[in-house]
């Protein structure tokens, strides 16, 4: 079986973008999240690494080039590949919307279990509505430096 897959992969490799597709037009509503902390559990449970508790860490991860996602109410995570015409989304492009709940029109590409989203237009931005700091403080605990907290 693996040989068969290898042969198929070699054929696709020759033709480069043979798997490029049109995608599906979608409307997505959800929270902008840091996908590494959300998927890996490295900082804690999923509910603690979203919203205001994790806002500063989400800024760090986005600036560090970790994929930013949109977490929909049904739990689906959409990996953002392009944002209102800008394909350079690994870095500072999405810092200003981290942790916000947005509504977007875009194109969805599904590949091997992951939802990839081309955000064409943000039609609404509701800001940060997930006030997780009330339950979790800040995650990680050192997000706000001691020089600010006075500890």
């Amino acid at each position: 079986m693996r040989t068969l897959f290898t042969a198929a992969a070699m054929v696709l490799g020759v033709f480069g973008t043979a798997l490029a597709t049109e995608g599906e037009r979608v409307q997505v509503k959800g929270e902008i999240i840091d996908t590494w902390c959300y998927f890996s559990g490295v900082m804690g449970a999923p509910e603690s690494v979203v919203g205001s508790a994790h806002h500063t860490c989400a800024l760090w991860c986005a600036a560090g080039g970790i994929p930013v996602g949109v977490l929909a109410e049904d739990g689906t995570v959409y990996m953002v590949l392009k944002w209102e015409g800008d394909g350079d989304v690994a870095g500072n492009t999405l810092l200003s919307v981290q942790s916000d709940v947005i509504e977007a029109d875009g194109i969805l590409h599904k590949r091997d279990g992951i939802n990839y989203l081309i955000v064409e237009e943000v039609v609404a931005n509701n800001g940060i509505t997930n006030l997780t700091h009330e339950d979790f403080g800040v995650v990680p605990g050192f997000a706000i430096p001691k020089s600010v907290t006075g500890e």
Partner: protein
Amino acid sequence: MLRLLIGAVLAAVMAVPAAAEGEFAEGSQVTGWKNLAGRENALFKAKVVDVLCELTGECAEKCGAGNRHMGLVREADGKLILAAKNSQASFNGATVDLAPYCGQNVTVDGLLVGDPAVAPTKVYQVFAVQREGSDKWAKTKRWTRTWKRNNPEADGKKGPWFRHDPAVAAEIGRRGWLGLGAEADKTFIEEFY
């Protein structure tokens, strides 16, 4: 601060040995980060791609040179694996480390990560890359070096990069640590600390 960060990461690394023997685990040399959800060693051959280009045909020179998300089209099964993280322990993705291999065939060593209850499929933390035909492995730790080169005014300050990154600092200045504004920060700090 750096001690706190290292301590947190070490605690995460040492916490729960939950290494899973995945289909691609053979030969993998990665030993750390043992508490990651669904952690699975994975060493495999792949072609390095810019994910946006791979999916839509909208390509950029040098796969975006570190500014676009990178993927690995696995030779064994043709699956596109999203590279989400490099080997460094300070919030660094894989884009800067993989972009130099754009379009090339490589072998990668790393971890597939993700709890099936949360993630439909696992993402990849790449620790090392070996170019096809080479016997040398390159560790994925370019990110901070590149950041220092791009931010000479911030480099050299005490503490890790994320405490001094100009864009991050500007955003915290604009919306605060919680993202809710200065008043919300003030109230939180008074009540919590």
